[in-house]
């Protein structure tokens, strides 16, 4: 009476396999979300009462004494839409442009492509936010695990208390605190020298002085992002590890006489870290959101600072472009986190849902 394993004989036809493929499905879902966001942002900018086009038309009428029609046509040429077409038609033209990677031209600096502007600022933000997330994710997991292992001892109390405090304080408050205390009062560094993304004296390129300069300029924003996000990781990892420590398989691993190291890494650590990957995506969105103020505070010329600039200049095409890029980044990092999770958790790999 040998028992056979029920299940994994896959008899689905190829097209069904394709449709039910987890990676593909996640990807299509992400594309759909991006499309929805594009549509949302487009109509938001076009159809809101007092929408940017209207405002711009009014602005032109007031400043340059144009008639409504002239002003409208002028606005249309700058917003890159056909003034005679309906909003829906404009929408499809816009979609087509987007597919070709064309986000239109900046309104305030005529002739500059929004996409090239974004490409200029994006890498710095990606560099900053990316390294900050990596640092706080790894460090946070480590501290969280530590707190969970020493549950209800002073180690845990200190770590959890500090994590609560750190997670409570908004990242831009950290930025201001760093500036006031270390920059202005203690003069540990010269704030003025650290503005921008690198020292204009060092030519960009893959060489040590440039990298050092880039790091020097990024260190403050990175520190701020780390401070702003690490508390969450610590608390999440502590909670996750605590509940994993209570799992049967961990107890049984102990009863099996496994060495402590092995239990802590392969049994507790791996399982406790799993839920954090889902949080990673949310965190990316959060940190990117905060980058607007943090970059502004440190005068770091990244995407957030560009967004703020375009908003204060009422440069709607740039604004639209940046908002889109940020959302797409979040959607796809969501997807990546999902896929990463499914790589790490065999339960998802097979069934395709959590």
């Amino acid at each position, binding site marked *: 009476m040998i028992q056979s394993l029920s299940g994994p004989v896959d008899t689905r036809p190829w097209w069904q396999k394709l449709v039910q493929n987890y990676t593909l499905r996640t990807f299509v879902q992400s594309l759909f979300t991006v499309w929805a966001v594009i549509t949302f942002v487009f109509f938001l900018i076009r159809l809101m009462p007092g929408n940017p086009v209207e405002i711009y038309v009014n602005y032109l009428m007031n400043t340059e004494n144009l008639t409504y029609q002239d002003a409208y046509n002028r606005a249309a040429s700058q917003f890159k839409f056909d003034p005679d077409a309906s909003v829906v038609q404009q929408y499809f033209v816009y979609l087509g442009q987007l597919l070709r990677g064309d986000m239109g031209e900046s309104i305030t600096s005529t002739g500059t492509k929004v996409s090239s502007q974004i490409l200029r600022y994006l890498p710095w933000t990606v560099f900053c936010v990316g390294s900050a997330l990596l640092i706080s994710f790894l460090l946070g997991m480590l501290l969280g695990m530590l707190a969970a292992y020493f549950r209800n001892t002073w180690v845990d109390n200190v770590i959890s208390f500090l994590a609560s405090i750190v997670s409570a304080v908004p990242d831009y408050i950290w930025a201001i605190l760093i500036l006031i205390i270390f920059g202005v009062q203690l003069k540990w560094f010269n704030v003025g020298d650290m503005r921008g993304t690198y020292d204009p004296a060092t030519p960009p390129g893959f060489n040590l002085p440039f990298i050092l300069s880039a790091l020097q300029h990024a260190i403050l924003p990175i520190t701020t992002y780390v401070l702003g996000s690490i508390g969450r990781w610590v608390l999440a990892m502590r909670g996750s590890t605590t509940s994993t420590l209570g799992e049967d398989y961990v*107890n049984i691993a102990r009863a*099996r*006489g*496994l060495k402590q190291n092995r239990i802590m890494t392969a049994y507790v650590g791996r399982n406790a870290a799993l839920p954090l990957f889902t949080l990673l995506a949310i965190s990316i969105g959060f940190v990117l959101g905060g980058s607007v103020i943090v970059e502004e505070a440190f005068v770091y010329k990244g995407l957030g600072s560009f967004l703020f600039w375009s908003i204060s200049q009422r440069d709607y095409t740039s604004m639209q472009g940046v908002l889109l890029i940020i959302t797409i980044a979040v959607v796809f990092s969501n997807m990546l986190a999902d896929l990463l999770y499914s790589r790490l958790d065999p339960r998802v790999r097979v069934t395709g849902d959590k």
Partner: protein
Amino acid sequence: MSEVVLSVQDVSIVYRVSRGQVKASQHISFDLHKGESLALIGESGSGKTTVSLSFIDMLPSAAKITGGKVLYTRDGKTENIFEFSEARMRDFRWHDCAMVFQGAQNAFNPVLKIKEQFLDTARAHGWRDKGKVIKRTLELLRLVRLDPERTLESFPHELSGGMKQRTLLALGVLLDPQVVILDEPTTALDILTQRAIIEVLKEMQSRLGFSIIFISHDLALAAEMADRVATMYAGEMVELGSTQHIFYEPLHPYSLGLLQSVPRLSQDKDELSSIKGNPPDLIDPPSGCKFHPRCPFAQELCNQEEPVFKEHEPGHFAACHFTENVIEARANLWKKD
């Protein structure tokens, strides 16, 4: 009788809680012989799991062993488990004494293949020869009637509950332990799956010759599996004897009460009755015999003096002041059969 593997002597364990001390297990003594299966039966909170957790030092942090010793003998050498160093205890676990917990649903690390988990266990106890471990694993999986190769390559979630339980049994005997503790091994399993586990267990025990401590609230299972049975009530062992003793000649009113409260399939209409009252509060247990508030035979003495756990006939122990009344009552009750 054959040699004693595990000798439990006067072990007491308490849990510290905010209200005081829960006297979870008090003055537990018994000997486990080589190759026998001993059932610990009792209701929830009777302390049967607590005492067995203490053998492998797996008690929760709130628990404290307040007395007693557990002597373990292997190859003629006897040691007190409670005095083990950490390293010795780690090696003792699973290699000498494996514990199969209830609810195997979650017994395996969900992110590792079954094979990894067998290898992990072997590696932790110094078995370096991977091929040999795999060979033994395949053998054991076949013994528990699973498809060995496929089980080995599976992740835990790909196995059904019954399969996991059997895989865990195979893992339990991987290192050829002398003692296997089974904590409610069939609870939450279907009847037919439970039957398969029972068969597998019996076969494994006869092949490998380990001793079993069997923890259950299910009298029927004990009747089928055990050579000897110990009844536990409110943290104390109240009766210990052969399966025949406990099921046909119980000396303790609680054992008798339990037998009276379970229906039997093969009989026609049974005369059943519950034990009156509720299990006692273990922080503030009743004076004297802890069972006396629920006992139909209780007299003034029971309230005042704790009965001694003593041998009434060879191999049959009980802690009751008035065993002769129990014998009389049981004769009256079972005459009708």
